[in-house]
C-alpha cells in the first residue's frame, strides 16, 4: 500500500426511492488496491451503495468521485457483477463475452478468452450459459466484469448459491486480483469466506456506514 490517496470518495450520499431512503448520508473514502467487504442486514443499503458506485443508481443528493470523475465518466475503470448473471442465457460464454467486448471497443477474441480462462472456465465451451451450473455462471459473470481489465471491481453477492469449494476458489481469484492492484468491493452475507483475504470490512445499517474494521470480529450489536 504505497498509494494513500483515496480512489473513491463518497460525500453525503443520499439515495431515495420515493419516500424510502436507501442511503442516508454516506460519507467515506476508499483507497486503491484494497479488498473491501460490505456487510449488513437485508435493506441496510449495501446493494444500493454498490449500484451507486457503478453508476446504476444516480444519487438523490451527495457526490461520488472515482478517480476524480463521476461514475458514468469512470465507467471504463469499473467492473460490475450483480446478483443476477447479466448474461444472455441462450448464448455460450464466449459469445456473451465477445458481445460485451464490443461495447468496450475490444477487438478480437483474445481478451475474452483470457478473461474466461482466468476464472477457470474453458472458452471453447459451446453450451449456452443457461445450462451452466450456478457456480459456472457466477464465474462467467465475473469474467464479464473483468473483461475490460477495470481498476475497480464491484461484486454483489458473488458467492450466493455457490458451493463452498467454488466460493473458496473465487476468493483466491479475487485475492490475486487485489494483489495485482485492483480495488475490490464485495457485498456478501458470507463474510466468513473472506476473513484473511479482505483488507477491510465495512458495516452498514439503515443506509449508513456504521463501522469499518480490519478483521471480521464478532460484533456486540449483533450485526453479523
Amino acid at each position, binding site marked *: 500500500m504505497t498509494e494513500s490517496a483515496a480512489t473513491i470518495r463518497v460525500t453525503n450520499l443520499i439515495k431515495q426511492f420515493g419516500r424510502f431512503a436507501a442511503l442516508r448520508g454516506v460519507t467515506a473514502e476508499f483507497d486503491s488496491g484494497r479488498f473491501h467487504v460490505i456487510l449488513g442486514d437485508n435493506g441496510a443499503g449495501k446493494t444500493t451503495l454498490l449500484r451507486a458506485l*457503478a*453508476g*446504476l*443508481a*444516480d444519487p438523490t443528493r451527495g457526490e461520488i468521485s472515482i478517480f476524480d470523475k463521476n461514475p458514468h465518466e469512470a*465507467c*471504463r475503470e*469499473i467492473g*460490475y457483477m*450483480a446478483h*443476477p*448473471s*447479466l*448474461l*444472455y*442465457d*441462450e*448464448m455460450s460464454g464466449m*459469445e456473451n463475452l465477445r*458481445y*460485451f467486448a*464490443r*461495447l*468496450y*471497443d475490444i477487438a478480437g477474441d483474445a481478451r475474452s478468452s483470457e478473461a474466461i480462462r482466468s476464472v477457470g472456465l474453458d472458452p471453447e465451451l459451446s453450451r449456452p450459459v443457461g445450462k451452466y451450473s450456478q457456480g459456472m455462471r457466477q464465474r462467467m459473470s465475473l469474467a*464479464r466484469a473483468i473483461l475490460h481489465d477495470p481498476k475497480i471491481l464491484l461484486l454483489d453477492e458473488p458467492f450466493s448459491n455457490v458451493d463452498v469449494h467454488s466460493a473458496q476458489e473465487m476468493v483466491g481469484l479475487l485475492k490475486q486480483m487485489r494483489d495485482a492492484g485492483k480495488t475490490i468491493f464485495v457485498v456478501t452475507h458470507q463474510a466468513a469466506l473472506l476473513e484473511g483475504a479482505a483488507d477491510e470490512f465495512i458495516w452498514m445499517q439503515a443506509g449508513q456506514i456504521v463501522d469499518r474494521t480490519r478483521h471480521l470480529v464478532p460484533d456486540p450489536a449483533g450485526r453479523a
Partner: protein
Amino acid sequence: MSSLRSITLATLTKDVRLEWRSKDAINSMLFFSLLVVVIFSFSFDPNAEESRQIAGGLIWVAFLFAAVVALNQTWARELRNQVLDAYRVSPAPANALFMAKVLGNFILVSLLEGLMAPLFMIFYNLRALGPAWQLIPVALLGTWALVVNGTFFAAMSLRTRSREIMLPLLLFPISIPAVQSMVEATRIILTGDGAARFWIVLLLTYDVVFTTACLALFETILQAE
C-alpha cells in the same frame, strides 16, 4: 461514429442470433397475423371493389397488432438476468442500443409483411389498380414508423408492472397519423383513385420527426431507474 456503428451492428447481430435460436417473436407474430387474416376473411365477404377499399385498413391493423408482440419481446430479453445493466455500466452509446433494436424489429416486421402480404392478396383477391410499386415505400416508411415509436415506448414501459398493456396504450394513439397515412396510401394505390404522394410524404415526415425525437430522448429512458 465508428463505435456507434460497430456497437449497433454487434447488438443487432446478437439480437438476430437470439431470435434465430428462440424464434419467440417471429412465431408469435406469424401465428397472430395468420389468425387475423383467416378470421377477417371469414367475417367479411367483400367483392373485388370493396376489398380494395378495406384491405389497407385490415392489413395495417393486423401488422400493427402483430408488431406489438415483437416489440414486447425486444426488451423482455434484456430484462432476463438484468442484462440491460451490463449495457448501462458500459461506455457504449445508448443510441447504438436503440438503433440496433429498431433495426432488429424492422427486419422482423418486414419479414412478417413479406410473408403475409401475398396471403392477404390471395384471401381478398386483391390486385392494385394504381402504381403497385408505391406499396414498397409505403410499407418501408410505415413499418419504420411503427417500430421506431414501438421500440421507444416498449423501452419506456419496461419497468412498469403491466408493460404488455402499457405499450399499446402509449403506442396506438401516437401512431394514428402514421396508420392513417399507411391506410390511405394503400387504399389509393389499390383502387387507383388519385395519387398517394401526399400520404407518402406525410409518412416520411412523421418518420424523420419521431426518429429524431426518440434518438434525442432514449438515453434518458435507458438510464431511468
